[in-house]
């Protein structure tokens, strides 16, 4: 039975309605979680012994970095499904996720440099993680600009899907080569992995923020995909009926 439902919602017309029903829930959940997570991060979590108050940027920085990586993989999976089974909605989802992924990659870089200034004394270090995050940001930009350059939606979907898949295969290669490059050049002077064991409240705050980012991403991607559906299906009868209803 569930199979039938899945196929039913693979149609843009039915998914449009489903997405509309799901958005408010995820949006409200994300607002609540952000409020709770930020409260824990800024008021409840103890001051770090080594890093003082400045470490609190971790509550935005780390979830954003996680999300930027997750979203790329999710995007590539949608793209792969779209390419393999020719499902239009998957390609639309990939397209809808990309800007949010790029946004999180940017936030991770931006907050990272604000964290780096008080901790390391510089805005930017060519650390393996920072560099691979930057390259991930470039990969998002490549995907978005390729899709934007192609007018025909079918070709744009499939070309984007291919570059997303090529990108996702390359991400580990790039990560390890950057890591090796970095250790060869300057030695592991700064390592985020060797952070002192974290207080439970810090971890809780970070996880809540991560879930908040997830729900935010779902809400935003769904509203973006609704717009993409409307744009693509503008010549179909159900969209014109929908517009009639609104009028």
């Amino acid at each position, binding site marked *: 039975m569930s199979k039938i439902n899945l196929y039913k919602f693979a149609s843009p017309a039915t998914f449009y309605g489903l997405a509309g029903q799901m958005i408010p829930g995820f949006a409200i959940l994300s607002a609540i979680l952000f409020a709770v997570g930020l409260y824990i991060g800024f008021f409840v979590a103890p001051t770090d012994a080594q890093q003082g108050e400045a470490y609190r940027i971790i509550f935005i920085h780390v979830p954003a970095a996680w999300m930027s990586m997750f979203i790329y993989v999710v995007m590539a999976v949608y793209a792969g499904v779209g390419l393999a089974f020719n499902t239009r909605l998957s390609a639309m989802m990939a397209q809808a996720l990309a800007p949010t992924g790029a946004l999180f990659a940017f936030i991770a870089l931006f907050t990272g440099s604000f964290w780096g200034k008080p901790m390391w004394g510089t805005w930017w270090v060519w650390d393996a993680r920072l560099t691979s995050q930057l390259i991930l940001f470039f990969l998002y930009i*490549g995907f978005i*600009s*390729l899709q934007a*350059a192609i007018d025909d939606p079918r070709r744009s979907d499939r070309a984007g899907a291919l*570059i997303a898949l090529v*990108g996702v295969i390359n991400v580990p*290669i790039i990560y390890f080569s950057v890591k090796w490059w970095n250790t060869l050049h300057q030695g592991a002077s700064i390592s985020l992995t060797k952070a002192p064991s974290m207080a439970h409240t810090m971890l809780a705050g970070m996880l809540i923020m991560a879930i908040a980012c997830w729900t935010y991403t779902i809400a935003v991607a769904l509203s973006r995909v609704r717009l993409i559906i409307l744009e693509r299906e503008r010549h179909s009868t159900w969209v014109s009926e929908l517009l009639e209803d609104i009028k």
Partner: protein
Amino acid sequence: MSMLAWIMKRDLLLAIRRKSDVLTTLFFFVIMVSLFPLGVGPEPQLLKAMGPGVLWVAALLASMLSLGRLFAADYADGTLEQMLLCPESLALIVLAKAAIHWLASELPLVLMAPLLGLQFGLSGDALWVLTLSLLLGTPVLSLVGAIGASLTLGLRGGGVLVSLLVLPLYIPVLIFGAGAVDASTSGLGAEGHLSILGALLVLALLATPKAVAAALRISLE
């Protein structure tokens, strides 16, 4: 097989008859490399340290510039469509075209690189490693670049778009290519880096022709 031989022969002939295309890329490479000393100053020690990286980055950019020629002319006159229709495996055709592209556009750069390396004061050993690393690395650039070239066929602003798509993917080759020369000058030995470049080349040879074939089908649909 004869089909592939014909395609290779034809591409080679076209490249030989359009010498200016090859020379433009080569001189772009030379000019690009010569600009760096003018920009950072003639300090021999600095130039020696920068040399491998500069040469490799210039090779990356030059190779990217020449990507447009890989499929564009065949796309414009419809030959590419005929190639898609012919019974020979498209991935093999792509491999043949990429091989000739490398021979015509990248090999001249590889041969020119030691001369430019001399200008940066690289030692004899370093020059050998540089040439070897370029020999192993530039085919990867052609193959990976072919993905970008095939996806952007006939698009507005295709050239700039290719750079956005392809340059991030070139990074591992750059790291290990320039790293090989650095490792050899610092006495670590370049074998490790060269082995990884070789591994990347094998991976690219196996995986990219299929991807390019898929991309061509998408672009020509």
